[in-house]
């Protein structure tokens, strides 16, 4: 039996009159690759924001590794092992590629530093951190660009770097919000391969628009519409589900 790493019950988020997520139940198992799909405004990003701590739920429960996290600030969730990427590229563009990843690595080590070290010791002299940084740069294929400014990287490489940042925080659960947005189909395939390769041991939740694309890589797929879970299941189950067919073909015109 695999264990449940993320358990969501009855999760609701309201913005004034608008209900962005409506009584969502969802379980993600350890090591699972879960894709979340749905039309625009279905509440996918809101769901991610709730899990990662960018938003607090109106009501409902979120448990990670058996502990409630719904009221924790974002940095606490990262420390416990929930890490995310953003829909719009969000890296430190004025810092070097190496420094980007090193900052993510450092986050994990920071608590272990004594005060003097944290305040005064040169970051270049922490061998463990820098070795780990180099290792991650190699895995995401950016080792030879380590000293370049992150902002000068090509778009695809910036998205890679984002995945590197997520990986460097040593997460158990990874939330990837459209990591392939704005990419050609070739780049998209490469990126998904990278995700599969470097994050093989982690549980993954991925937001993606393209159903065909995720059929191969996902263990399970959750379909959201109007803030509710329309269906959850294996790719085969989803592809033959009538409700999903209706929602996608009907474009959600019915009230």
């Amino acid at each position, binding site marked *: 039996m695999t264990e449940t790493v993320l358990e969501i019950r009855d999760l609701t988020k309201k913005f004034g009159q608008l209900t962005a997520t409506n009584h969502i139940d969802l379980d993600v198992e350890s090591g699972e690759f879960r894709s979340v799909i749905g039309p625009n405004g279905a509440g996918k990003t809101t769901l991610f924001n709730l899990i990662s701590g960018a938003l607090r739920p109106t009501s409902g429960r979120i448990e990670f590794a058996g502990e409630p996290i719904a009221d924790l600030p974002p*940095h606490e969730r990262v420390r416990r092992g929930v890490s995310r990427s*953003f829909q719009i590229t*969000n890296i430190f563009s004025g810092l070097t590629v190496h420094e980007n990843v090193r900052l993510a690595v450092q986050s994990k080590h920071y608590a272990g530093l004594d005060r003097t070290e*944290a305040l*005064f010791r040169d970051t270049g002299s922490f061998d463990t951190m820098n070795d780990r940084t180099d290792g991650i740069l190699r895995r995401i294929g950016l080792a030879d660009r380590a000293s370049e400014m992150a902002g000068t990287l090509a*778009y695809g490489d910036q998205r890679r770097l984002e995945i590197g940042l997520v990986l460097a925080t040593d997460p158990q659960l990874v939330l990837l919000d459209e990591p392939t947005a704005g990419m050609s189909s070739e780049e998209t395939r490469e990126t998904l391969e990278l995700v599969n390769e470097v994050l093989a041991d982690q549980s993954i939740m991925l937001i993606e628009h393209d159903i065909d694309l995720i059929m191969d890589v996902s263990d399970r797929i959750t379909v959201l519409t109007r803030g509710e879970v329309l269906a959850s299941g294996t790719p085969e189950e989803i592809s033959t589900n009538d409700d999903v067919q209706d929602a996608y073909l009907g474009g959600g015109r019915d009230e």
Partner: protein
Amino acid sequence: MSTVVNLAEQLINGISLGMVYVLLAAGLSIIFGVMDVINFSHGELFALGAYFALSIVDPLGSGVGFWVALILSPLLVGIVGVGIERFTIRPLYGRNPLYHILLTFGLVLIINDLITLGWGPEQQNLGVPEYLTTPIALGGIEVSVYNYFMIGFTALLAAGIWLFLTKSKYGMIIRAGSEDRQMVRNVGIDIDRYYTLIFGIGAALAAVGGVILGGYQSVSPGMGSSVIVPAFIIVVLGGLGSFRGAVFGGLLVGIVRTLTRTYAGSELFELQGTIVAVPDFEGVTIFLLMIGVLLYKPQGLFGSSEHGGGAESTLLTGVESQVFSDGTRRTLGLAFLVLLALAPLVFLLTGNTYYITLLNQMFIFAIFALSLDVVMGYTGLVPLGHTMFYGVGAYAAALVMIHLTSSFLIALAVAILVCAILAWIVGSLSIRVSGIYFAMITLAFAELLYNMVYKFDFTGGSDGLVGWEPLVGIAGVGIELGSISLPLGLIEITPATAFYYIAFGLALLSLYFATRVMNAPFGSVLASIGETEERTKFLGYDVRKYKRRVFVISGGMAGMAGGLLAVNPSTFIVSPDQTLAWIHSGEVIVMTLVGGMGTLVGPMLGAGFFVGAEDILSSYTEQWRLVIGTVFVLFVLFVPRGLISLPSVIADVYSESRFDNSIATKKDMEESK
């Protein structure tokens, strides 16, 4: 006279003043709502209105002249506003809104000096028709007709603006623009043209306020800077971009100010032989009010939450080492240090001791600018009240030397400690809001302290503190700094020289300290917060904790600079205007930006440049701020990365090479998305 009648009269006075604030705040607020521009020069445009009126009334006489001025002066100021928007503000759209604060601060210096240049520094009276100044009694309440005129006229004007904004086609476009600029452009409307119009209208409204208040009180060059801070408080209180908020806030502040001023110190009742009086709250209440509102409801009482939340585009930091190699830079730096170490000896030999005093001032400001830089340049927080730490440090050190011990070491240590604690308190509260709100709340804290030192006896009120003698030593063992006289060959070490080496040493120590911190894990997190706060948070860092800590470090460092001011043998007095006035918060931002923020050496050089330029310019002209202001505006527009990046800017122009420091590429990338 009965208290009720008196109260009613004061209420009318309060509303009269409040209506002037409404005009000011309405203009500020519309400009912000549509253009996202925080216009610090609004107070100077207000003053300019009053001065234009002076020149109009002068030849025409107060009878006709006042009415002509009431129409013509706002028109003229409106045209000035149009010019300002087109030539200085327009190039900055798309940059972080904080650049507008910096730019318009430069404009404050320029316009203010132009006013003094044109009309002289003395206070003048604006002629008002006689029938307006006569007292009138209505229901036992006796105030001047002018009060009713002020209230009536501005109320009509405010109603007119409100109708314009809600009913006219232009008003609709302006409001649509404040909702979504791009969308308005997409439907084919040239919104940029409207920006000019809006800025012009805002300037004209300020001028109307200036003319009206000029007739009520008097006209002086300081009138702009005395209204700008309350005007900002009103806008923030009411909600940035909210017209209703401006009206409500303006009246509230006008009434509160007048009432607290009138009733301060009046006896309430007697309790067991002690007289209980209304505490003297003037100038303090509104800042407390603002801080409270910002903490409780950051978007203001009537504001929507869409404005000014965070800084979307990052500040442009200085770029080092593009032209010179590391080795060259190290050699240059070392040569510079040796030069500084030997400078006083040369000055003593040649008899130019004045320059030692000047350099002493530079060191103090260099430390002050460095302290701002770790917060602003690295962490991306722009405090508009940084001078509170400088001022409190100076006061703390002076008080220690007057009352406790004359040891300068203990005085400095206390200054640092007190300011670090103050920074922890102010920081903990201020970092709960971000961007423009953070800037405003720190301004409010600084103004609060500025007004508080006026109130207390132990701070010497407006006179400040005098009479202490720093001791170079500790626990009574040592030598008085002021009586140092040490013959050394051909020269004699003076008190200023002794202080020089203290200040020089501490400036070096501060630089070394800051360099170590910025290269260490803690500093690296600050840099990442400066880049993108959100990403830093989602890497697992408790962003608030880091902000609070850097604020403490910065506050302590600024406190040391202030303490040094008190220790400096050429300082005889520590006064509120010299240390805590908001203009100094602006000046230290100027130094930091001109030098190149986000580099540690840059702001220190900027401080030296500023002090030096002030000294040289002031020997030629009274209007040195005009020149400094112009230089600053040019820097904001063309060299936002500061002096330190000049070599690379020059090299860039020369070689036309396409080495660029990631701005252009970044922009391209954002556009291609």
